[in-house]
């Protein structure tokens, strides 16, 4: 696999703008760079490990198991598994996307991976604890009760409305 320079166009422009900003000592450059640096460190702290885990998952987990539990013929329990996996997902959606695409490549059905992404967005446990303590338990409870069924319904709709060729685009970016 070759590294293409064009993949880094945004980073190159960003670096040039940062260099100009710093040489003019603009506060915006310092502010944006501080954010960049601290979020970069946050990412380095766990994203590479996530990809290693996905790599191991890919080699070790038998496709038949995923197909059986999360695939086309899986029952309602599959949503439950998707939710369990989602609620324990670390980070944010940016982790859920690669995980979902790896699951899809292993035979999980589209509605299940969309459900996984949706519930990973709204049901992650650490986040929910913050929500319940700062905004209120009943707020969190209603939000879960409303959004989980909506996520499942919309995932089924998405599975039906998205064409085969668009689904084929889901790459596991190997």
């Amino acid at each position: 696999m070759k590294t293409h320079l064009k993949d880094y166009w945004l980073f190159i422009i960003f670096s040039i703008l940062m260099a100009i900003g710093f040489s003019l000592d603009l506060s915006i450059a310092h502010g944006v760079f501080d954010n960049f640096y601290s979020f970069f460190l946050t990412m380095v702290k766990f994203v590479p490990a996530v990809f290693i885990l996905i790599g191991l998952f890919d080699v070790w987990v038998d496709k038949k198991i995923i197909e059986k539990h999360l695939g086309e013929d899986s029952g309602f329990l599959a949503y439950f598994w998707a939710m369990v996996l989602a609620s324990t997902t670390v980070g944010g959606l940016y982790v859920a996307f690669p995980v979902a695409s790896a699951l899809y490549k292993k035979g999980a059905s589209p509605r299940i991976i969309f459900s996984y992404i949706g519930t990973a967005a709204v049901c992650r446990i650490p986040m929910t604890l913050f929500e319940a303590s700062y905004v209120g338990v009943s707020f969190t409870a209603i939000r879960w009760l409303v959004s989980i069924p909506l996520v499942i319904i919309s995932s089924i709709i998405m599975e039906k409305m998205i064409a085969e060729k668009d689904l084929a685009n889901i790459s596991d970016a190997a």
Partner: protein
Amino acid sequence: MVYYFTAALTAVLFMIDKEKTIKGLKLGLKKIRKNSPVFLNMIILVALSLYFVSDELILRFLGDGSGAIGVAIAGGLGSVAFMPGFVAFPLAGILLEKGVSYTVIAAFTTTLMMVGIVTYPVEKDFFGLKITVIRNIISLVMAVIVSIVIGLFYGELFI
């Protein structure tokens, strides 16, 4: 934490099957290399979002927001903002104390969680443009529904 877990798992798997584990690690490294540019793009967008859509800005814009316009502003800010739960929910708590409605808070936090402008580079890379756009639009609709139900529950909206 994640690294310890990964290391422990790798060690165990390595003892079970050396070749398979090395193959998995190689695949993982390849994925890291392949995905670095999109993650880098996302980090840049996050850096810009954190700067331009700061906590102060959100406090200012949502501070006196109410009604449909408040929900629209909250949804817009939630879609472009990026913040982890431990920043977002204390902020939501402050907004509540300032008298912002639960309806508006729900629109803000739900879009924050579900709609991702800054995660767009990553989502598009894995799912393609079309699925990304559809998912984000559906999420936006969902956020409005959640916020309406919350509003009804807290007696802020009436039918």
